[in-house]
């Protein structure tokens, strides 16, 4: 068979967001692929320099539709580090709770999409139904299903009363049994195993060379998790269990993400239990003193890197955001070079692409 190149173009059932890929195949074997980003590039770093710190929270939140809260949390911690203030512990715990809830619904969303790509629509419907429960908590608590606008500089914008606590605990218990079920399906479902076991394995030194972070790295045995290595305030008091797997194939990535959902569920329960009393926000000035800061946090897809410099005015002088998907994307063309056509969806889903994050 001669060499054909399939365009997995900006519009394709495989891609939820526009990313242009040219994959050249011969017969069923994939030879390689090239990548083109920039379809959702909004120049957020440039925009951030023309808006005040307060307005930037809502701009930063729109970098990514799925992990918006972790962006605003990292940004607010960066600004608070420049201000040299410490937010009240209750606000730290509420931020951590929202981060963990966001990790759960991001992983559930990803699992549904992977199941849909290998033909298991039932699992897609069931996981997205469970995800609705998490989104209901967030909508009830913060007022927005996806863009929660939960953070402000100096703390959080809402407080959890007893009735919220009860509702969250009830849903978490129900979620626990669902996640158990999902894990069993992935470990035992013969067809799902057949489609993901041993597909596109990544070796640990390939991970290190390409600087891949997050569940993809942990699935190949590289033990890095910013919640434990560079813990932001509440995580130093919380014990985070890092899940790693050694053979790094599509199934290992699935295993790591589902186990992480369970760890996040336990974390949510401990956070709710140990939530300290006290107010949720500290008043902060509008002008931020001059200085530079680097903050790293653990987004659902890996290490999120923020560099913020202020020149004393109420607008940031420079804001650099490096999202985890950008690191994982450089490995994609390499991954594509030794699989066959039917595995492209599994590999693409394995990277858990968030193109809006990568393009900024």
């Amino acid at each position: 068979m001669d060499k054909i190149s399939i365009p997995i173009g900006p519009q394709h059932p495989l891609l939820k967001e526009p990313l242009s890929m040219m994959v050249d195949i011969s017969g069923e074997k994939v030879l390689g692929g090239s990548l083109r980003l920039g379809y959702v590039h909004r120049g957020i770093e440039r925009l951030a320099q023309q808006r005040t710190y307060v307005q930037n929270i809502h701009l930063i939140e729109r970098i990514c539709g799925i992990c918006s809260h972790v962006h605003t949390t990292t940004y607010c911690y960066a600004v608070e580090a420049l201000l040299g203030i410490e937010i009240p512990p209750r606000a730290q715990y509420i931020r951590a709770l929202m981060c963990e809830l966001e990790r759960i619904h991001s992983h559930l969303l990803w699992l549904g999409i992977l199941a849909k790509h290998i033909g298991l629509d039932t699992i897609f419907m069931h996981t997205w139904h469970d995800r609705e429960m998490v989104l209901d908590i967030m909508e009830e608590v913060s007022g927005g299903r996806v863009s929660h606008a939960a953070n402000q500089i100096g703390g959080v914008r809402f407080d959890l009363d007893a009735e919220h606590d009860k509702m969250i605990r009830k849903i978490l218990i129900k979620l626990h049994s669902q996640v158990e079920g999902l894990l069993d399906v992935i470990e035992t479902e013969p067809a799902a195993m057949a489609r993901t076991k041993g597909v596109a394995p990544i070796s640990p030194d390939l991970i290190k060379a390409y600087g891949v972070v997050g569940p993809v790295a942990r699935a190949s045995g590289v033990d890095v998790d910013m919640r434990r290595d560079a813990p932001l305030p509440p995580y130093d008091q919380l014990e985070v269990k890092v899940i790693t797997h050694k053979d790094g194939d599509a199934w290992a990535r699935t295993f790591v993400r589902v186990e992480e959902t369970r760890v996040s569920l336990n974390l949510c329960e401990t956070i709710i239990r140990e939530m300290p009393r006290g107010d949720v926000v500290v008043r902060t000035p509008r002008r931020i003193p001059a200085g530079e800061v680097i903050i790293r946090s653990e987004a659902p897809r890996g290490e999120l890197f923020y560099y913020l410099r202020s020149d004393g005015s109420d607008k940031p002088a420079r804001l650099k955001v490096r999202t985890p998907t950008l690191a994982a994307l450089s490995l994609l063309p390499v991954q594509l070079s030794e699989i066959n056509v039917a595995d492209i969806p599994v590999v693409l889903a394995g990277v858990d692409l968030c193109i809006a994050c990568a393009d900024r």
Partner: protein
Amino acid sequence: MIRSLFNLLVFPGFMFLVLSGLIFEWLDRKFLARFQRRVGPPWYQPLADLIKLFSKEDLLPKNANDLLATLLPLISLSSVLTAGLYVPIAGYTPFSFEGDLIVIIFLMSVPTLAYYLAGIISLGIYSILGGGRSLLQFFAYEIPLLIALSGPAILGGSWSVSSIMESQGRLGPFIIFQPLGFILAIVGLIGKLKRDPFDIPKATSEVVGGSLTEFSGAKLGFWNLVMDIQAVVGIFLLIDLYFGWTKMGYPILSIVIFVIECLILILILSGTSAIFARLRIDQLAGLGWRILVPLALLQIGFVILMGV
């Protein structure tokens, strides 16, 4: 003359088959939805889809052969309808002759070939890939299906479906003698209908729409109709070959039992599509040759021994 015209156009013919095709699609989507905790579409949804498709604009790629593109769905529709004529429905068979089982099987395979040709002539990358895959898959499920279907023929001693049904009246339903053959026939039917474990030719995530990516409007409407009627005819065939004893007693009871059997089979079909993930083409070929064919041969050997 009028009676055979009535048979041709209304009862086991065009109207009845189209109607039962639509009902099948609705039931299938409803069961699948209920498996996935969804409400599912209203009863008129398949009809609405059909009408919408027929009113839509009918586009084709520039240098695609328009005549062939229109003929292919019509040829497969007519072949599936004629297959439907010969399949006894609740024991009532207006046209039946020695060897109509072979005619039905042949007419049921014509759409698969037409599907491949549709992929080739629409010249799109995805449709050529989809067409190629449908041929690859064709051999994996067709041979076990043929061997499984010939089981009841051997046991019944004839190639005419109605006489097989009569012999089942004497000996009892054939499913008792060859349950394995029934399972293989179900798997073969799923493969023929390109349903979930075997929907590699039209896997949206890999080849977008398969051969039908470039089709739209009335042609696509015909293709969907072909898929539905093929399913209905397949189900009727399996019921007649394996649960054939409905030919006895008063007609009302046999019709009710026939409908129940249909429901059970539809439930099985949508159940398997809810539970199984799509296989890769090499895994499917492996499954076909390493597991399905030996099993079918084993079943046939057993049937021949028992028949003699």
